[in-house]
């Protein structure tokens, strides 16, 4: 009895191993028999070693800033909680909680954009200037380090990107970000999108989102939406290329970064 059970278990083990190995053997056997498909970037795609952004605060008026925020929202289907949902299309939409809003790029005053540089004798003009804040696409991004599924990751070209398909909504990245650049979809955003842009997906509830430096536009050879409407206030380019426009601007002007002392190496510069 004991012996037969043992031999049965052995046989069962070998069989299980065989079943497990079959797909692997099949995969090895089939590879090479057909030409593999090729995946490439588009020819017109814009490339960089490390994308960065320079914001010229002298050129940023309230009107321009507003246009930028609006263009970004439109390009990425960012919901606006002030938008009254269409009662026919989205019946029974529950009232919004404004503290749960989504922001990719938005206006702040100096003392909030740079809380560590708060100064009672700050030049008066800086107190009233709009400062646009967004994801800094840090070189050492704490959000990338925190994400337990690599849903937030750093692309080779320096863009810190979100894979909305993979995000489990743990919000560890939001705690990790020293710039408050991340938003969580506490609810389905669609009722609050004024006009859905077919060129970019919306998000589902339960995932985190943030600025993607218009990766989808760069892939098509276009400048990011914010830069396009900024009337020269925002320049996006390759920080590693000494001949690039961003490097030229940084060489000629005094520029600061947010919370530089934390060592996350933000890629967004502000010309003062």
């Amino acid at each position, binding site marked *: 009895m004991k012996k037969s059970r043992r031999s049965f278990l052995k046989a069962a083990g070998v069989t299980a191993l065989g079943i497990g190995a079959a797909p692997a053997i099949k995969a090895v056997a089939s590879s090479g028999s057909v030409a593999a498909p090729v*995946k490439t970037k588009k020819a017109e795609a814009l490339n960089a070693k490390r994308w960065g952004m320079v914001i010229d605060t002298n050129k940023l008026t309230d009107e321009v800033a507003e246009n930028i925020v609006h263009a970004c929202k439109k390009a990425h289907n960012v919901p606006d909680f002030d938008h009254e949902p269409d009662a026919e299309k989205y019946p029974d939409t529950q009232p919004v909680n404004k503290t749960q809003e989504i922001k990719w790029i938005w206006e702040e005053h100096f003392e909030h954009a740079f809380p560590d540089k708060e100064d009672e004798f700050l030049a008066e003009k800086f107190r009233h200037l709009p400062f646009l804040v967004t994801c800094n696409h840090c070189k050492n991004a704490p959000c990338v380090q925190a994400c337990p599924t690599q849903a937030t990751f750093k692309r080779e070209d320096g863009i810190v990107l979100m894979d909305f398909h993979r995000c489990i909504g743990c919000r560890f990245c939001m705690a990790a970000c020293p710039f408050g650049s991340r938003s969580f979809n506490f609810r389905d955003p669609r009722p609050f999108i004024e006009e859905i842009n077919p060129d970019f997906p919306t998000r*589902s509830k339960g995932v985190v989102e943030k600025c993607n430096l218009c990766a989808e536009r760069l892939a098509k050879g276009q400048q990011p939406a914010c830069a396009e409407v900024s009337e020269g206030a925002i320049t996006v380019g390759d920080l590693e290329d000494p001949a690039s426009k961003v490097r030229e601007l940084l060489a000629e002007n005094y520029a600061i970064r947010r919370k530089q002392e934390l060592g996350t190496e933000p890629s967004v510069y502000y010309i003062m």
Partner: protein
Amino acid sequence: MSKNAIMAGLVVFVAMALLPFWYNIGGSSAAPEPELSEKAKAAQKCVLDKYDMRANHMSLLDEWRDSVVRDADRLYESTNGKTFQMSLSTGEESCLGCHTDKEKFCDKCHTYASVDPYCWECHTTPKEINQ
């Protein structure tokens, strides 16, 4: 005493286990055929051949989304020589660019097979936007 209880329990268990069959009694119908749009018919070739596509389109889409989002590759040159934009719904060379009618192409089988892919929670169809 316990024999009866066991038998009764077994009957209940079997009845419960077969619930999907009871539920579908009389409601069975032939598998639907997805309807090809004129454009798709004219194109003749899809990314993979018909049967491969039928069986594996979900793995292909899974692979595509990783390539686009994570590797920044957007074009896919298939083994049949045609090039596609690796996108579900944006642009002429995307899936929906050719298979223009989601309801007749995607939903038909998905509904029949009771699968509810969450693609459409985020990805949009032109038709839906214009509604």
